[in-house]
């Protein structure tokens, strides 16, 4: 095995890890760091279940190789909660019943979070565009959009 030593940050914590060059970021998060909130759906960039935030941008972790995150900062769904308190987005998803089976939810939340970090008060169209790469087969997009809109309307725009 040709391992590479890389340093990176996940949810505010610094890591140094040996990784295989072709290991995907998704596998690093789930198998090596035990962060199983990030889901594997299609494994080909279509479903968005594996979405994480890399240096402020939503990306599919099934399409990033682990060594590419060296020196970068990743936020996963586990990073949303702060000191036992759910992030406003998470609260709004629950209030609006935007979660059913929950498989799409972590990816959906991360796409929404990345949007609000860049644009605290998005229009409905901007919300729909931001989650266009996240498939949900049960809850229905209107509830999800309503939850994100509600989070963005609150005082701090849903962003820390």
């Amino acid at each position, binding site marked *: 095995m040709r391992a590479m030593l890389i340093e990176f940050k996940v949810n505010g914590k610094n890591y140094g890890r040996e990784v295989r*060059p072709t290991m995907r970021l998704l596998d690093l998060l789930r198998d090596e760091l035990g962060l199983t909130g990030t889901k594997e759906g299609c*494994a080909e*960039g279509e479903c968005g279940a594996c979405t994480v935030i890399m240096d402020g941008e939503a990306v599919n972790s099934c399409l990033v190789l682990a*060594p590419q995150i060296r020196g970068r900062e990743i936020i996963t769904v586990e990073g949303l909660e702060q000191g036992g308190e759910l992030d406003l987005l998470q609260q709004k998803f629950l209030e609006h019943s935007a979660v059913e089976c929950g498989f799409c939810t972590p990816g959906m939340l991360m796409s929404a979070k990345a949007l609000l970090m860049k644009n605290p008060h998005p229009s409905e169209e901007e919300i729909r565009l931001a989650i*266009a*790469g996240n498939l949900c087969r049960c809850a229905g997009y209107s509830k999800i959009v309503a939850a994100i809109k509600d989070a963005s309307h609150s005082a701090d725009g849903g962003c820390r």
Partner: protein
Amino acid sequence: MREAAMLTPNNLSELREALGQATPPSKILAGGTDLVLAIHQGRCKPDLLIDLSGVEELKIIKLTEGRIHIGAMATFTQLMDNQLIKGSLPCLREAASLIGSNQIRSAGTIGGNIGNASPAGDTIPVLLAFDAVVRVLDSSGQAVEQSIDQVISGAGRTSLRRDQVITEIIIPLLGEHYRSTFVKIGSRTAVTIAKLNMALAVKYDETAKSISDVRVGLGAIGTKAFRERQVEEILNGRRVDQCLADTLAEELSAAVQRAIPGRYSLPYKREAVKGLAQSAFANLFPKLYGGVSFTT
């Protein structure tokens, strides 16, 4: 399978050194939206990956002497947000904004779109219409400028040597009297026959209400995108009216017929391209259509 090695150059000179170690199965890694998938699915088994993500020089977008230089590692999101692109190349911005999803746009790069050489690559018809050239660097440090047509040799194939990398895409700016647009149908998951894309650029004379220097880049037809010179010639000097939109539609349909005779996708594409022509024309001349703009 033997695990690939990875080199992670941090600047252009380290990149040059890394290129010196490349063998035929070695691969350049950009945003990974095509390549990581191919590796994961076992379609591509590189011995060495050269990761460009640490080379900051390749992410720069700048204007020098009337030409826009776009670093090969500029992402589609970067192209959409960049003021220079917004102001001078709205049609490239349109193409970038219609790619994949937000996640794909924030990782996928313009260099990767060329390197992947998909016949349906969305930036390719735009780059062809603008006569863009590609700056290619090799391990000896020599840099050459090549046309898009020279670099892309066929479906999924480029003419790049194993020790070469695309560093920049250079686009000569057209004058202020030019108008351009990009239109497409069919997303990546759509079956191949349902895909088409096109860039259309024209010089518009407001007084004579006529067009010249017409440029048509067509993609997702045949093995690689191409300029449709015959259609360009027919449109040059013509007066802009609904009749001209219909001419464009008919001529493009004939062009599709010439490009893929006998192909099973022909009956669909030669009809679909007419709709594409009308949308493109409406985007260039919205007044003719009562100000409605079409995004397909």
